[in-house]
C-alpha cells in the first residue's frame, strides 16, 4: 500500500471521531478526561439565544442528508409560546451505504448525549428522544448506559449542574423500517403509529412531536454541537468550504483497499478519499459510485475531482446526502446494483402514496425481466416514464430517492442495459423470478 501524499493526508480532520481511538471513551470517566461535558458547563452559562446564534455562525448544516442549516432550524422554534418543545435525534441510520452514526454512538455515546443537552437547552426543550434504529443493538446498549451515567452524574434530570434547566432523555428503539428515518414518519412512529410521513406544512418546527414545536436532527449534527461550543464558530469554519463548513465523516465501502470511516474536511474529492483508502482493490477499476447513499444519483470515474460538499455534488448532478460513498468497479454491474436497490425501495415503501408504492413494485419487475434476458427496448422508456411519475409526485423523499439510481444508471450506463436486452450479456437472474411480470 502506498502512503497517501502529505497534501491528501492534510484533508483528514479527526474531530467527531477522535475519541474512538480511546477504547473506554464510551464510559463517563474516560469521556470526562477527554474534554467531556466541558462544553455543557460552558453552554449552560450562556443565553440560549446566543447558542442558537453560535450554531448559525458556525454554518453547521444537517448531517442527515439534506444539509439544512442547523442554527436556522433551531431558530424556527417559536419561543415563549407556552407549549412544550422537543428535541428528537434521528438515529435511524438506514440509507444504503451509510454507516457513520452507529460507530459514533457505539464508541462515543456521551458526545451525542452532551450535544442533546446543549441543543435542548438552546431550543428550550425539557424532553428529548433519541430514536435509534432497532437493529443497532450494540449502539443502543452503549447509549442507554451513557444516559444512565449522565443521570447519575446530574447531567440529566432536574436542575442540571445547578442551572435550573431540566431535561429528560429517552432512548427509543425502532423496529425495522427505513422510512422512519424520514423525519415526519419518525415522529409518527415515536407517537406509536405506523411510520408514515406527514403532510407539510405544518412543519415539525411548529407542529412536530405531539403537535408541539420540535427539532429533528441527525446524530452527527447534534454530536457536532459540543465541539462548536468549545472551539467556536471561527475554528469550525477553518474546516470545509465556504458554504459547507466543518468536518464530515465519509464512509467508504466497496472495491477499495481499505474501506472504512474517514473524517475529512468537507469538499475532499473521491480521488483523495480513494488515495487515503489505499487505492482501489487490486484488479478493480472505478466504474460508478454513490456520493451519499443509494438515494443520490450515481456518479462515474469522470467525477473523481468533484468537491464533496453540498454545492459541489449538486453541481455535478447528484446530492451529497449522507457522504456514504459506495464504490463499485468494472467487475460490478450497474443494472444489477440498481435492481437490488429498487428491491430495497419497494420493500421499504410505506405504501401511503401511489407513485412510490406502485412505481417501485413495477420497476422491480421490469428490472427482473431485463436481468433475466427478456427485456425489451420499450422497457427502458417504461422505466424513465415511471420515474417521471414518481419524482416530484411521491409524498416523501423515499419515492424521489428510488428514482436516483434508475435515471442516473440509464444516463451513464445505457449500454449495459442494451447488452442484456440484445443478448450480449449473460442473464443475471433466472426466469423463475419473472412470475407476475408481463
Amino acid at each position, binding site marked *: 500500500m502506498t502512503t497517501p501524499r502529505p497534501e491528501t493526508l492534510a484533508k483528514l480532520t479527526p474531530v467527531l471521531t477522535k475519541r474512538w481511538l480511546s477504547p473506554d471513551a464510551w464510559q463517563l470517566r474516560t469521556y470526562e478526561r477527554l474534554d467531556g461535558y466541558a462544553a455543557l458547563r460552558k453552554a449552560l452559562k450562556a443565553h440560549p439565544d446566543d447558542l442558537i446564534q453560535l450554531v448559525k455562525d458556525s454554518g453547521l448544516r444537517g448531517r442527515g442528508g439534506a444539509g439544512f442549516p442547523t442554527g436556522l432550524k433551531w431558530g424556527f422554534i417559536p419561543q415563549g409560546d407556552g407549549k412544550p418543545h422537543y428535541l428528537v435525534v434521528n438515529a435511524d441510520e438506514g440509507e444504503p451505504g451509510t454507516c457513520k452514526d452507529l460507530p459514533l454512538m457505539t464508541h462515543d455515546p456521551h458526545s451525542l448525549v452532551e450535544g442533546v443537552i446543549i441543543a435542548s437547552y438552546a431550543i428550550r426543550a425539557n424532553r428529548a428522544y433519541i430514536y435509534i434504529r432497532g437493529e443497532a443493538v450494540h449502539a443502543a446498549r452503549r447509549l442507554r448506559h451513557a444516559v444512565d451515567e449522565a443521570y447519575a452524574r446530574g447531567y440529566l434530570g432536574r436542575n442540571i449542574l445547578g442551572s435550573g434547566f431540566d431535561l429528560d432523555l429517552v432512548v427509543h428503539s425502532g423496529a425495522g423500517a427505513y422510512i422512519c428515518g424520514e423525519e415526519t414518519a419518525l415522529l409518527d412512529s415515536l407517537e406509536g403509529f405506523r411510520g408514515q410521513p406527514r403532510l407539510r406544512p405544518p412543519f415539525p418546527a411548529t407542529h412536530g412531536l405531539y403537535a408541539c414545536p420540535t427539532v429533528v436532527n441527525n446524530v452527527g449534527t447534534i454530536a457536532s454541537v459540543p465541539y462548536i461550543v468549545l472551539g467556536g464558530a471561527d475554528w469550525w469554519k477553518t474546516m470545509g468550504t465556504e458554504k459547507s463548513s466543518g468536518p464530515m465523516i465519509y464512509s467508504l*465501502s466497496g472495491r477499495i483497499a481499505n474501506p472504512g470511516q474517514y473524517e475529512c474536511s468537507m469538499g475532499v474529492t473521491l480521488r483523495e478519499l480513494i488515495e487515503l483508502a489505499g487505492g482501489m482493490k487490486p484488479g478493480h477499476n472505478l466504474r460508478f459510485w454513490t456520493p451519499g447513499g443509494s438515494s443520490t444519483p450515481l456518479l462515474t470515474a469522470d467525477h473523481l475531482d468533484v468537491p464533496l460538499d453540498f454545492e459541489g455534488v449538486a453541481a455535478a448532478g447528484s446530492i451529497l446526502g449522507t457522504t456514504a460513498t459506495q464504490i463499485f468497479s468494472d467487475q460490478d454491474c450497474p443494472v444489477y446494483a440498481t435492481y437490488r436497490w429498487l428491491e430495497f425501495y419497494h420493500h421499504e415503501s410505506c405504501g401511503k402514496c401511489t407513485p412510490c408504492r406502485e412505481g417501485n413494485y413495477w420497476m422491480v419487475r421490469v428490472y427482473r425481466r431485463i436481468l433475466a434476458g427478456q427485456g425489451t427496448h420499450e422497457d427502458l422508456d417504461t422505466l424513465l416514464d415511471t420515474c417521471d411519475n414518481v419524482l416530484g409526485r411521491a409524498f416523501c423523499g423515499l419515492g424521489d430517492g428510488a428514482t436516483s439510481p434508475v435515471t442516473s444508471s440509464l444516463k451513464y450506463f445505457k449500454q449495459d442495459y442494451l447488452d442484456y436486452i440484445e443478448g450480449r450479456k449473460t442473464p443475471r437472474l433466472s426466469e423463475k423470478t419473472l412470475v407476475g411480470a408481463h
Partner: protein
Amino acid sequence: MGFSDETRERAREIIARYPADRSRSALLPLLHLVQSEEGYVSPAGVEFCAEVLGLNKAQVGAVATFYTMYKRRPTGDYLVSVCTNTMCNVLGGQEVYDTVAEYLGVGHEETTADGKITLEHAECLAACDYGPVLTVNYDFFDGVDPAGAVKIVDELRAGGRPTPSRGARLCTLREMSVQLAGFADSREGAVADGVPGEPTLRGLRLAEQHGISVPGFDPNTPIRSKDAPAPATPAKAAPTGSTAPDVKAPDAKSPEVRAAETRQPDAKTPAPDSPGTRVPVDGTAPAPRDAQAAEAAGVAENAPAGDGKPAGDSSEAQERSLDEASASARSELASPAVASEKEAQQ
C-alpha cells in the same frame, strides 16, 4: 396467554417513560416486550398491548404488521440476518444467504425444525465498510463468506455461541427483545464487550500515524453574547457562514414545477433540502416574534392539534384529524416557510 407479572411490571415502567397523556408512544417498546415473552407478536401479545394502552386490537395490529422486526410467527433462539442489499450483495452476501438457506433448508423468515434458527435476508445494516455482513440477534459478524456463515449456524445449532466480530456476546432473541424494549443489558460486562474494528478506525489511524490534528482548537473560546458589542457580522443580512440553500419562491412557477426542479438538481440548482422537507429559506430566519404572534393567533383560533390520526382509528380521531387538517390549512400563515416566502416577495 397470560403474560407474566414481570412483563406487566416492565410494561408499567415502559409507559412511565412517556408523558402521561402520550402513553401511545410506548407502543413500539411494548411490542418488543411481548415479543420477548413469546418470541413473536401473537394475537395475545396484540391484545396485551391494546389492553395496557387503552387501544383496540386493530390499532395495535396495524402497527405491529408495519415493522419488519416484529415477527408474526414463532421464531428460533437465534435470528440470523444476512445483508443482501447492493453493497454486501456484490461483495458476496447473496451467496452467503443462498448457501445458508440451502444448508438449513429454510427460506426467508422461516425457522429450522429444531427451533434454533430463524433465517432472513436483510437490507443494508449500516455496516457496509465491513461487508458482507450478517447478524445474529442483531450483533455483527463481519466479512463473512459462505463457509464461515455455515460454521456460525453449525455452532449455534450445536448449542454454542460464537463471538460476534464487534458488539456483545450473544444472547437469545427473547433476551434481546427485552433490551429493544428499552431495558439495560443485564449481563455483567456485556456493555463493555467488543472493540472497534479496523474499518471504523482507519481514517483515525492514518491521522495518528502522520501526526495530523485540527489546529487552532481552544476550548476556552468565548461564546459571543448578543448584548456584547456587535461583531463584524451584519445583523440582518445573511450572516457569515449561513449556508441556507436558496430555494425560496423565486418566480411564479407552480409549486409542483418548482418541487420537481429542486428535487432534480442540475448545475444551476442549489443543494435542496431533503426532498419533501423544503423549508424555503433566504438565509434569514423569520423574526421569531412574528412567527410567534402568528402561531398564537392560530392556536387561539383552532383547537390544539391532538394526535388524531388517519381515519380508521376511531370516529373521534377522525374528527380530530379533520380539525387538524383545517387547522394546518389555516396555520400556514404561521409556518416559517410561508413567512419567509412572504418576506421574500416583499
